[in-house]
């Protein structure tokens, strides 16, 4: 079975700082990768996703993530965070075959200070 690790549990940044959130997964086969975001009091929503092709994917609100297959990683980045990026971020994975339900990491709480 696959698993996902998010090593940063709580990150505090000042506005305009750069962001990188780590995500590593364990699975031997081909995977689809996702980052979801949950703003305070709101639904979980998709930030970006990787299926195949260009390993650098761009999502909403200036976020991007890079899939590095050799490292089993899918780190989330943003060059300059805003106060409105304060949220909880979840990395998720699903294999191309077999059970297609998402496996989530434990989440990273991002707090951006004005």
């Amino acid at each position, binding site marked *: 079975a696959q698993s996902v690790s998010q090593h940063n549990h709580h990150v505090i940044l000042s506005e305009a700082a750069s962001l990188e959130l780590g995500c590593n997964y364990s699975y031997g086969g081909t995977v689809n990768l996702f980052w979801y975001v949950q703003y305070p009091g709101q639904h979980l929503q998709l930030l970006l996703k990787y299926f195949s092709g260009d390993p650098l994917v761009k999502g909403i609100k200036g976020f991007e993530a890079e899939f590095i297959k050799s490292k089993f990683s899918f780190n989330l980045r943003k060059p300059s965070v805003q106060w409105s990026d304060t949220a909880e971020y979840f990395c998720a994975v699903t294999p191309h075959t077999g059970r*297609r339900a*998402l496996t989530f990491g434990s989440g990273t709480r991002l707090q951006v200070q004005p």
Partner: protein
Amino acid sequence: DVKVTQSSRYLVKRTGEKVFLECVQDMDHENMFWYRQDPGLGLRLIYFSYDVKMKEKGDIPEGYSVSREKKERFSLILESASTNQTSMYLCASSPPYSSSYNEQFFGPGTRLTVL
């Protein structure tokens, strides 16, 4: 826009009660899912369904059951609620699996407290 609705935002029940959590989606999605979200644990899959009357256990099915009598509705049942089932419950739906896997769309969640 896909809309996934859950019957209650907040629910308080007593230990031993039978609890029903309802989820409805309006996009004719084949797949539906129930997760629970706990601090520090992320989202964990309880059950999912890929068709009417079909269900599969997720990673933490103990103490739960599900029902899918209609395509748009997926119910989570706590047969006898216990305090360790106090959590946020999230429902999600997605289109059928394909070579281009589509995202899951989430409801607002039900925060269940079991006293």
